[in-house]
C-alpha cells in the first residue's frame, strides 16, 4: 500500500509538471498580451514595463524562470493587480470556493444517494418516479438557469436568502451551493438507483434474505456498500464538473472565489494569474482522483489487494 501511494505521488508530480508546461506554452498562443491595454505607452516605456515583468526575455528563458519559481511555490506577480503576488491573490479567494465546492459535493451526493436508494427500494412507485424526475431535471437544466431561478424566487421574491456576494456569512453560501449541487445530485441519484436495483437482484441478497435479514438490513448492510462502487468511480469527473460549474456560479452570484478570478484573469490576459488558477484547479483535481482511488480500495476489498501490486 505504501509503495502504491509513493508511486502515485510521483505520478502526481509528473502530471503537474506536464500541466504547468502545457499551460505555459498554450497561453502564449492567446491573442493579445498582458500589456496590450497599455497602448498609450511609447516604445521605451513599453520596454521598461516588459523588462519589469520579465517578458522581454525569450520564451524558453521565461519558462525556465517560471518553473524555477514554481518549484519554490511562487506563482509570480499579477500583471493586473499591481504589485500583488498571485499567491496572495488566490489565497484570499480560496475559502469561498472551497466552502462552495465542499458543500455542493457533500449535499449533492448525500441527497442524491438518498433519492437513488429510495427510488430503487420503492421501484415503480411515486417515490421512484419523483426521484427520477428530479434527477433528470438536475442533469438537464444547466446550473446557471437553476442559479437564476433560485436568485429570482428565493432571494428576490421571498427575501429568504441573500441574492449574491459573500458578506452574509454562511447564508451567502446556501443558494450557490444548491445550484452547484444539482449536477452531483442528479448523477448520484441515477447511479445509485441503477446499481441498487442490480445489486438487489443478485444472489447474495437472496442469501441475505434466506438468512432472515429484514428489509433495512438488506438495503443498508448488504446492498448499499456494493451499490456505492460505481458512484465512487464517477466522483472524479463529478468534481471536475463542480470546478467548471463554479466558474459560472461564482460569476452569477458575484462570489469572490477562484472561479470568478479565473474568468476575469482570462479577460485581462493576466498570464501569471491564469497559470496560478489553472495549476490550483489541477492540483485539486489530481488530489481528488487520488483520494477516490484510495476510497475505492476501502469500499471494495477486491480492489484493495490488486492495488498493492499495481
Amino acid at each position, binding site marked *: 500500500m505504501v509503495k502504491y501511494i509513493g508511486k502515485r505521488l510521483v505520478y502526481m508530480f509528473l502530471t503537474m509538471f506536464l500541466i504547468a508546461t502545457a499551460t505555459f506554452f498554450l497561453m502564449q498562443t492567446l491573442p493579445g498580451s498582458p500589456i496590450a491595454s497599455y497602448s498609450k505607452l511609447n516604445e521605451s516605456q513599453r520596454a521598461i514595463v516588459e523588462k519589469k515583468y520579465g517578458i522581454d526575455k525569450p520564451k524558453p528563458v521565461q519558462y525556465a524562470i517560471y518553473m524555477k519559481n514554481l518549484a519554490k511555490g511562487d506563482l509570480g506577480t499579477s500583471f493586473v493587480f499591481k504589485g500583488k503576488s498571485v499567491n496572495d491573490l488566490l489565497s484570499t479567494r480560496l475559502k469561498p470556493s472551497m466552502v462552495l465546492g465542499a458543500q455542493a459535493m457533500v449535499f449533492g451526493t448525500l441527497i442524491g444517494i438518498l433519492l437513488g436508494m429510495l427510488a430503487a427500494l420503492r421501484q415503480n412507485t411515486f417515490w421512484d418516479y419523483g426521484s427520477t424526475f428530479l434527477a433528470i431535471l438536475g442533469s438537464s437544466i444547466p446550473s446557471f438557469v437553476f442559479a437564476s431561478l433560485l436568485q429570482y424566487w428565493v432571494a428576490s421574491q421571498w427575501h429568504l436568502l441573500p441574492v449574491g456576494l459573500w458578506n452574509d456569512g454562511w447564508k451567502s453560501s446556501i443558494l450557490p451551493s444548491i445550484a452547484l449541487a444539482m449536477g452531483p445530485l442528479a448523477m448520484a441519484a441515477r447511479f445509485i438507483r441503477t446499481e441498487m436495483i442490480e445489486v438487489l437482484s*443478485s*444472489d*447474495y441478497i*437472496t*442469501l*441475505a*434474505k*434466506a*438468512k*432472515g*435479514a*429484514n428489509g433495512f438490513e438488506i438495503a443498508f*448492510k*448488504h446492498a448499499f*456498500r*456494493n451499490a456505492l462502487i460505481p458512484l465512487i468511480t464517477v466522483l472524479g469527473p463529478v468534481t471536475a464538473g463542480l470546478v467548471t460549474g463554479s466558474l459560472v456560479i461564482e460569476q452569477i452570484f458575484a462570489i469572490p472565489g477562484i472561479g470568478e478570478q479565473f474568468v476575469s484573469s482570462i479577460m485581462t490576459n493576466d498570464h501569471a494569474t491564469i497559470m496560478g488558477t489553472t495549476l490550483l484547479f489541477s492540483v485539486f483535481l489530481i488530489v481528488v482522483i487520488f483520494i477516490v482511488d484510495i476510497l475505492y480500495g476501502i*469500499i*471494495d*476489498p*477486491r480492489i484493495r*489487494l490488486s492495488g498493492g501490486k499495481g
Partner: protein
Amino acid sequence: MEKILQVKDLELSFHTFAGEVKAIRGVSFDLNKGETLAIVGESGSGKSVTTKSIMRLLPESSSEFKNGEILFNNHDLTKLTDKEMQKIRGKDISMIFQDPMTSLNPTMTIGKQIMEPILKHQKVSKAKAKEVAVELLKLVGLPNPEMRIKMYPHQFSGGQRQRIVIAIALACNPKILIADEPTTALDVTIQAQILELMKDIQKKVDTSIIFITHDLGVVANVADRVAVMYGGRIVEVGTVDEIFYNPQHPYTWGLLSSMPSMDLEEERLYAIPGTPPDLLNPPVGDAFALRSEYALQIDLEQAPPMFQVSKTHFAATWLLHPNAPEVEPPANIIERMKTFRGSRYYEETTGGEA
C-alpha cells in the same frame, strides 16, 4: 416417521407481461425428519420455484399462491407475514444456493456473513458468535478458520465458497436445509467433495434436506427419497431404489435412459424428444404426453391422478390404471427392473409377461 414439512396441493403462478405462468400446478409432498428428499427434473419443471416458495423467497410483487398450503410447525408458511417469515428463514429453514461465486457478499468478510444469522436468531454475544463461526468453518472442512474468518469471498475458490455457504446455512442448526443445485456450478472433483461433506454433516446435525438437482448421479449418491417433477407437477415419488429400479412414469424412464451408463453398448446417448411444456398455456392432460411415445388417448384429455405403486411409491401416469394396456418400458429400464424385488420384471429373465 415424523413429518417435518408437508406441502399440499401447492399452486403458484407468476404474473408476467405475457400473462399468468402457472409454474407450480398442484404439488404435494412430505419431508420426514432426518431424511434427504431429492427433487429432480429438467429446467423449468418447477423444482427451484417449489423450494423458493417454501422459503418465500420469490418476489412478492410478481408471484402468487393460488392454492394449497405449506405446513411447518403447525404454521401454513403461505399465510405468514414477511416479519414472521424472517424468524423462520435462516433459523428453522435455510438454503444453499447454486452458484457460490455470486452468493456471497463481496464486500463483507466471510466471518461477518456467517455470524449474521447467529446474531440475528440467537441471543449470543459477538465473541460467542465468532466462536460458533470458527466451529462451523471447521465442520465444513476449511483449514485455518481463525485466520480465514477475516478474509473476503474473492480470496476463496469456488469449492471453498460453497463450503462457506453451507456453513452459513448450518449456522442456526436448521430443521430443514434446502440445497438448490449446490454442486451444479462446481467442477466434478469438487462436486464429489461437497456431496461427501453434505452427507457427513447430515449425520452430525440430523437435519432434513431437500436436494434439488437435475443430475441423477448426484441423486443416487445422496437421496433417501426422490420426487420427479415435470411441468409444475410431481409425476413420480418414491424411495431412491424405487425410482431407479422400478420407475413407472414415462418421463422417469426418459430421464433414466438419458443418463450415461458404463455397461450399455449403445453408442448414442438417449435424449427425450421435444421441449418442455409452455406453462403459460399448460397442456390439459399429462404434460409429458406430447413428448412420450407411451402416451394414451386419455393422457391428452385428462391429467392422471397419483396411482399408488407401493407404500412409499406413487406415480401420476394413466399407464398404472387397471384398464390401461400393458406397455413395455424401454430395454434399459427393463434391465433395471429385473434387479428390483417387487417389480413386474423381477425374476423373469425375459421381459414382457402376459
